[in-house]
């Protein structure tokens, strides 16, 4: 079992957003988390990554045999949990390749491996940019500064390609992408999948799931998983929207 989430509850500014989430992810799997605005999709992604603004109020999360909630944000990253941001952050004046090498070397150190010097890292980066068909020159620019929406998303997946996480949580990786960019980013993500890692795709739209085919689909409503199923569940959402969920869950409220 790679990730086991049990009855996870979390709040922000005293308002409970996650009201008991259960989720099991095995190596090799792709999960999609869908749901209407405000259902808690992004919160789930942030809480798993250890965002300091969210307070975990209950439940437990085991990742790779370790208590994930007891780990700091950077410890989780070093333990191979990766979050692709819906809105990647700009860091003016810091070169992308320097930023990425600093983080990558922290991961290596955490696994008892030697750090890569700038030359070796540059060589690695040159192979990784191909995954998302990015120009190497982009990596000499400041982190996300002046990047278009599509470039930012490619840049997130480039970072995923470098970090090679065991668990990648992709938060709305499709937002702001045109069809061509969506295809490139998706095929980049697919090329990074192995039997040893897993991805959780958080998305609003079924469209993305035509490119990244999930093994399991979960629909979130009001901080709980209201329905789980195979990829056909995503099609149902596409066809019927989210209204049927409220009715289906009404008795439990």
């Amino acid at each position: 079992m790679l990730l086991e989430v049990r009855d996870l509850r979390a709040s922000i500014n005293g308002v409970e957003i996650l009201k008991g989430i259960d989720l099991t992810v095995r190596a090799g799997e792709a999960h999609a988390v869908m749901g209407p605005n405000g259902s808690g999709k992004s919160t789930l992604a942030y809480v798993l990554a250890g965002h300091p603004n969210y307070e975990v109020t209950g439940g437990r999360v085991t990742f790779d045999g370790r208590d994930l909630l007891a780990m700091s944000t950077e410890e989780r990253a070093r333990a191979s949990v990766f979050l692709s941001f819906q809105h990647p952050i700009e860091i003016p004046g810091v070169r992308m390749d320097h930023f990425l090498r600093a983080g990558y070397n922290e991961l290596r150190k955490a696994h008892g491996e030697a750090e890569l010097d700038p030359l070796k890292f540059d060589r690695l980066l040159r192979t990784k940019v191909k995954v998302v068909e990015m120009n190497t020159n982009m990596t000499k620019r400041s982190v996300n500064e002046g990047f278009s929406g599509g470039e930012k998303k490619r840049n997130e997946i480039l970072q995923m390609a470098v970090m090679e996480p065991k668990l990648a949580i992709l938060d709305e990786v499709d937002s702001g992408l045109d069809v061509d960019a969506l295809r490139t980013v998706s095929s980049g993500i697919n090329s990074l999948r192995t039997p040893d890692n897993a991805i959780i795709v958080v998305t609003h739209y079924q469209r993305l799931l035509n490119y990244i085919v999930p093994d399991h689909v979960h629909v979130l409503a009001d901080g709980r998983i209201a329905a789980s199923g195979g990829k056909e569940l995503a099609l149902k959402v596409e066809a019927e929207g989210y209204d049927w969920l409220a009715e289906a869950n009404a008795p439990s409220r």
Partner: protein
Amino acid sequence: MATANKSLQELAASEYRYGWSTNVDAETAPPGLNEAIVRWISAKKGEPEWLLEWRLKAFRHFMKLVEEEKTPEWANVHFPPIDYQAISYYSAPKAKAELQSLDEVDKEVLETFNKLGIPLEEQKRLAGVAVDAIFDSVSVATTAKETLAKHGIIFSSVSEAVKDHPELVKQYLGSVVPYSDNFYAALNSAVFSDGSFVYIPPGVRCPLELSTYFRINTAGSGQFERTMIIADRKSYVSYLEGCSAPMRDENQLHAAVVELVALDEAEIKYSTIQNWYPGDEQGKGGIYNFVTKRGKCAGHHSKISWTQVETGSAITWKYPSVILQGDHSVGEFYSVALTKAYQQADTGTKMIHMGKHTTSTIISKGISAGHGQNTYRGLVRILPKATGSKNYTECDSLLLGDKCGAHTVPYIEVGNPTSSVQHEASTSKVSEAQVFYCQQRGLSAEQAEGLIINGFCRDVFKRLPLEFAVEANRLLEVNLEGAIG
């Protein structure tokens, strides 16, 4: 949140690493400022009559300013009145006789510079850099003199220059900063001891980086050096100064004057890494750095560029400026000023456009942490005759924590319609979102802040000579205790 706060506190509370002092047999003037002391300093240096007269004029002017209580009070810095009679105006390691070579320099003094990372011995020196080492009031050694002499370059202490090249000193001393310029310049002119003197002959591109390292050692003394750099027609020089001082509970005064002159088509690049003792966490002790630095682009198409990284001093009061006299001359000011604990900095520049088609650029980056107060004060004055002139100013402030302050005080005067000025200012904080993003990529909160701050300073750091850019990075790291990737 908890981790971010903790590391911010750590950032604000990092230690000063140059705070030790050296035991040397020193000759120190008794505290007090009077005509006898001025005469004594001048005699000590065997100065000619004209220089003594100049000092005395400055001394009388200063005493008049003191009597009239004309201490400058416009800067956004606060400190108790300074007792100018309690300071010793001269202190120097006792020399056996006139020094002929490095072998005769006091071992303790050499060791001091070794410890500071400025080895003076031939075999240990930094490649491509010539160093003038100043210990309290005197220059103890100047390296690479022979190499420079081959090109006709003069690089010596001011005291030596007065002896060997009196005509040059006489021509330029006070030509950019007259003794009557301001309160601290008057004091400096009266009691100045050593400093560096540089002259680059016409058409010569100085093959080495010239560097002066200032070390205040003796307790109860002040440092009042004077530096002069003259770049003759079509010459080029890059010069760097560094400084540090022991940790002491009392405040020590450093009131220097720097004068630069660039003749036709000459270029002077002047870089400073200022790391005077800033005082302790409660704001006790530290150097008062009240310095007048000014360059004159006297010739057409000349260029003067100031780059400063200010991390030290309890109080910084300093405005490296450029008088753009020659047509098509260029003035630049690039600054990073860091204030933490209870440090105060009021710093900036003045760009005085006199010649036609003159251009100036100002990039100022202020970082405040702890209870630090950081003020950018800048004047851009374009005179009526300076037609077709341009200025670009960018002032950015970064705040770490919520007890510090950043202030921007720009003065802009444009005297003709064909000139243009552009001013941009911003104030930002290291955002939680940025720190979280970095942490998600494996960096600690502290590493993240170091990285973000370095990015903020990048436009200035990249102007530093390569040898010193690393030093500046490291210094900021030490001062903010953040590891940089």
